[in-house]
């Protein structure tokens, strides 16, 4: 799940980014409102974590701008403002969720996962595809009773495609969604991850879930 974190506190950015990446999120970082709009203009984010007090352009202005531009990314406001009117204003401007600082990191992660499920029309945090169970909370993949060991990148590819069943994603789209803006990733790397993933599924006796549409990309049906 690809996120944009807009937060002016460098320390909070750093720790949140580390934690979210550990949980399998792909995180881009913006430190002010204008930088956030620039990122949003060039990337498709599933969720945006947005602070309200930002240099250059405040969070609510960023939110208004992206909604008026027709950008439908889910927005979770993360602010020290705890007044009801602040929450109401944020939600009325198009935010999907509001968390007050200080917050529990695990709660933030859970809310982001819930946003991801809502976005893909999935209710159950455990995805099931042809006998393969993908637990999006524990990030564990099982076939029958066998746990299939996957690297973080392999798991990310599997969860991404499994939660968007029937949709074809090209190499570039996968790179865009699964890697942050600072990563340099080639098509070969994506192919390598998918190839390794297929081998691990096969080794566990699971069917080949990932199909290739030549000239288009990959999908899970």
């Amino acid at each position, binding site marked *: 799940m690809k996120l944009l974190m807009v937060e*002016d*506190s460098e*320390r*909070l950015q*750093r*720790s*949140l980014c*580390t*934690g979210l990446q*550990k949980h399998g999120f792909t995180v881009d970082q913006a*430190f*002010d409102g204008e930088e956030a709009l620039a990122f949003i203009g060039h990337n498709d984010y599933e969720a945006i974590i947005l*602070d309200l*007090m*930002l*240099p250059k352009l*405040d969070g609510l202005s960023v939110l208004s701008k992206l909604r008026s531009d027709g950008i439908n990314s889910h927005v979770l406001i993360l602010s*020290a*403002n*705890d*007044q009801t009117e602040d929450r109401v204003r944020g939600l009325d401007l198009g935010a999907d969720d509001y968390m*007050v*600082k*200080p*917050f*529990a*990191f*695990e709660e933030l992660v859970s809310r982001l996962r819930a946003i991801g499920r809502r976005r893909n029309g999935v209710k159950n945090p455990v995805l099931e595809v042809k006998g393969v169970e993908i637990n999006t909370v524990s990030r564990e993949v099982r076939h029958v009773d066998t746990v299939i060991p996957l690297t973080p990148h392999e798991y990310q590819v599997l969860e991404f495609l499994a939660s968007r069943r029937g949709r074809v994603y090209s190499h570039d789209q996968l790179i865009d969604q699964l890697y942050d803006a600072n990563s340099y990733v080639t098509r070969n790397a994506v192919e390598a991850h998918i190839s390794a993933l297929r081998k691990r599924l096969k080794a566990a006796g699971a069917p080949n879930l990932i199909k290739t549409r030549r000239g288009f990309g990959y999908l899970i049906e």
Partner: protein
Amino acid sequence: MYSIRKRLNLTIIASMIVVLALAAGFLHVRVADQIEAVFDAALLDKARALISLTELDEEGLEFDFAEDGVMSEFEPGESAQYYQLWESDTELLIKSPSLATSDLPQSKVQPGQHHFSDLTLADGRAGRLVAIGFMPRIEEPDEEEDALGDMPVAKPIALILARERASLDHTLWVIGSTIWGGTLVVLLLVALLVWRLVGSGLAPLSKLASQVSDIDESNLGARLQHSGTQSIEIAPIEHQLNYLLERLQSAFEREKRFSANVAHELRTPLSELKTLAEVAEMVPDDPEQVTRFFRDVGEISGQMERLVITLLELARSEAGLLRADPEDIDLARYCDQIWTHAINGQSNSKTLVNHVQPNLVINTDRDKLGMILSNLFVNAVSYSPDNAEIHVSAEIRNQNIVLQVKNAAMDLKPEDIVHMKDRFWRKQRSHDDNGHSGLGLALVHALARVMQLDVQLQLDQQREFRVTISGLQPGG
């Protein structure tokens, strides 16, 4: 606590009771006296009539009124009247047939005098008598007769005339009950009227009290209002209360804003600490990350400590707990020391240009001046462009020393100046400004007040920001 309305009602009604009771009592006594006097006068007239019918001739005393059929009221009967006459206070001359075997009380009375008194009549009724003394009229002798020959000697006679007084008592009772009953009715009406009039007179006060009691901390924006013409007694109260409400609301809002600002300023570093702690647990095997996290924790703690110290200093200055403790200070050297300590090598690209003349000694509180300079230098470094020079200078004006710190501040606008001493005011409300909480200049002003210094902020056309501190005393 007492009710003004109740007290007014009771006071007015009690006063009315006393006044009306006195008036009624006086009237009753006067009327009763008058009626009794009329009654007595009638009795006396009748006695005098009897006297006029008493005559002394050569045959002795004649009582013409005692003849049969002349005065029937002295005959026995239900409304009988009584008389009795004594000569020389001892010899009974005559008494009315109505007395039968009983007598009227004998009374000594000199001729020409009379007196009244009450008595109980023979039939048991209450009665009233008049005792009158007189000398019997002597009949004129006929011309032919020798008048002086056989005429007896006249002796003083006492006449007691009595009649029942039931009709008088009844009249007095009717008059008394009419006066007192009327007074009671008037009192009741007055009480009712007073109750209503006092209530209606105090209605604006009651309305004011009701409006005031409806105001609490949740609706301090409410203001006292009146309908119709305002009374000159209530108007100043309402005006003053509204003024106090306005001030209270303003104080509450300031307090609320201050609390919200404090909470906000603490929430962000707390949030950073909490996230650092939670995320650090996830990367125990990444020493580089953990080391970085610990460094962040140190920075956050320092930032929170500065915030808390500043808040405490502000609170102390507001509570009047801060006192200036002056001592001699070498100003030029002290400025350099504070710069070194406050900036602590954090801004190598910016320099302090110290124009203060060497050996200029001032007499002021060292610690507080240090805090003021430290805040001014940190602000100057934070908000000046790269490679900027921060100038500090001092000059003597009117035997006082004026200290000035100036630096370029390209982002500042003239309209920002008035807000700069407000607590938690920052040009940017975000946290990209190295942990500035917006309290520095508020603290500078608070400390300057304690030290009896004046602080002026100015921004000139070239966007050069100047802080001028005047009132410093020369030392030495």
